[in-house]
């Protein structure tokens, strides 16, 4: 090559991902250091760091995050369990699907957050309302994916099960559920993502008690940009961790699928 490669291609690949974030951080820091703006919204990166340390040390973070996560998991557990049962019923029984399915698909159209005002009337503003809303958020994706997973179990598998004279319970637990597992897990994964989004939404809209969403709201109301930025980072980190955990569990539980293929 006569010409040297462009600068962008001379940076080693593993380092490339860091260039942009570090560059942004540098711009932010310079903007603060040289006082480009006198707005109180321009806080220094170190202020955010100090705020993070203080907030963590005082136990406020643990309290807020604990409350949010507890609600998140409670709502998710209720919604996902309900969704699994309902989705399985829809999937296994054509009759049930015909009777209830269309009503379900109609209700599904309603935008998730539009439920909040109704829920606040029915359940108040406390934990009960938030958990109810979260279970609703987790319910829909689990139902849809469980239903589709069970409906797409290959007919041949069921036929083989019949030939082997498996009982209904055996067909369910050894054939249908394992075959539908990837789709069911996809639904649960989606439900986890939605539940986290809904946790924040519930805390913004049903303002009562503690939670990471309330932390963000407080920060905004008191114009504490450092607290808001820190809150956004925490929210992202929690979302990332939940996502990562779900992927790990999914891989672990579905490992048998991969190995059966690899053995041939």
């Amino acid at each position, binding site marked *: 090559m006569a010409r040297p490669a462009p600068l962008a291609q001379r940076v080693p690949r593993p380092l490339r*991902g*860091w260039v942009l974030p570090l560059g942004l951080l540098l711009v932010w820091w310079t903007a603060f250091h040289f006082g480009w703006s006198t707005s109180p919204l321009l806080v220094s990166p170190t202020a955010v760091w100090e705020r993070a340390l203080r907030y963590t040390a005082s136990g406020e973070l643990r309290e807020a995050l604990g409350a949010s996560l507890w609600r998140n998991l409670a709502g998710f557990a209720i919604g996902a369990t309900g969704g699994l049962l309902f989705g399985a019923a829809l999937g296994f029984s054509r009759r049930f699907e015909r009777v209830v399915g269309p*009503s379900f698909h*109609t209700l599904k*159209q309603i935008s998730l*957050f539009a439920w909040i*005002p109704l829920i606040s009337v029915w359940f108040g503003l406390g934990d009960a309302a938030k958990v109810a809303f979260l279970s609703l958020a987790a319910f829909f994706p689990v139902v849809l994916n469980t239903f589709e997973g069970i409906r797409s179990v290959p007919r041949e598998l069921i036929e083989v099960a019949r030939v082997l004279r498996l009982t209904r319970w055996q067909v369910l637990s050894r054939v249908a559920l394992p075959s539908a597992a990837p789709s069911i897990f996809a639904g649960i994964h989606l439900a986890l993502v939605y539940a986290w989004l809904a946790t924040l939404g519930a805390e913004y809209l049903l303002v009562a008690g503690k939670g990471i*969403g309330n932390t963000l709201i407080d920060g905004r109301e008191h114009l504490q940009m450092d607290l808001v930025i820190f809150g*956004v980072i925490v929210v992202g980190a929690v979302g990332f961790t939940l996502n990562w955990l779900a992927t790990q569990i999914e891989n672990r539980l579905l490992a048998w699928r991969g190995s059966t293929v690899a053995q041939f």
Partner: protein
Amino acid sequence: MTTPLSPLLNHRAVLAAAELRAPLAPGVPSAQPRLLSSARRAWRALAPRLVSWPFPLLVLLLWYLGCRFEWIAPQVLPSPATVWATLVDMFRSGDIWLHLQVSLVRVFAGFALGLAAGGALGIAMGLSPTFKDYVYPLFKAFSQVPVLGWLPLLMLLVGIDETLKIVLIAKAALVPVALNTYKGIQGVPTRYIEVARVLRFTRWQLLTKVVLPAAFAPIWNGVRYGFTHAWLALVVVELLASSEGIGYLIVYGRQLFQLDVVLAAVVVVGAVGFALDKALALIEVRLTRWRRAGF
């Protein structure tokens, strides 16, 4: 046959004749089974649709009875008749159109912005590995924070005006569009690119004639997801910070404890979301028409 009414009359005459003949049918050996089987076939076609009605009607009936006999306070759940009256009233007075118009302008502006930015980002990441190396990690981190996480930050930065709503909706649409476009382009078979190279396509031709058509399905999937997210974001942002729009109508009804307004607005939100989703599905059919030509 010359009057415009005649086909109708004719139709009636046929019906009457059929009625007259019906009691005679048992005498005719061949007519009866055929009539019966066609009726059965019609029933078989209709039955699956009919069985879906008893359940919602039962719920509606329970709801009605619950309100009629005041098992539930009307402040907690207004009767279906009230909700329906409110809905009709909102349409008649034109209130709802005003709010709906504001909401639709917002969602389309935000969605268009998110679509353009997400599409450009996805195409750039898909076509240039170097660009992807630089941008993808930051994009991934950015997408980990849900739309609602950005809300307080954006409120501080841009206030609670129209900009906030449009930026937030755009962000909601951007992530799925960019991600699916990128993944779709990654999934284009290498063979296609090789053929295009042999045919000496320019970069632009490669993009518009090979890459984009081949990656159409996943990209379009991203567009639909993007729209669903945009609609969700619209409702949230209007619930939180707005003085007009369909989401605001819900909050307004809630604040005045007029649950009939809330329920009517919720019905409208559901119906509009459904209609827009169906519209996207129709566009998809139209856009993929070229595919059938090949077979």
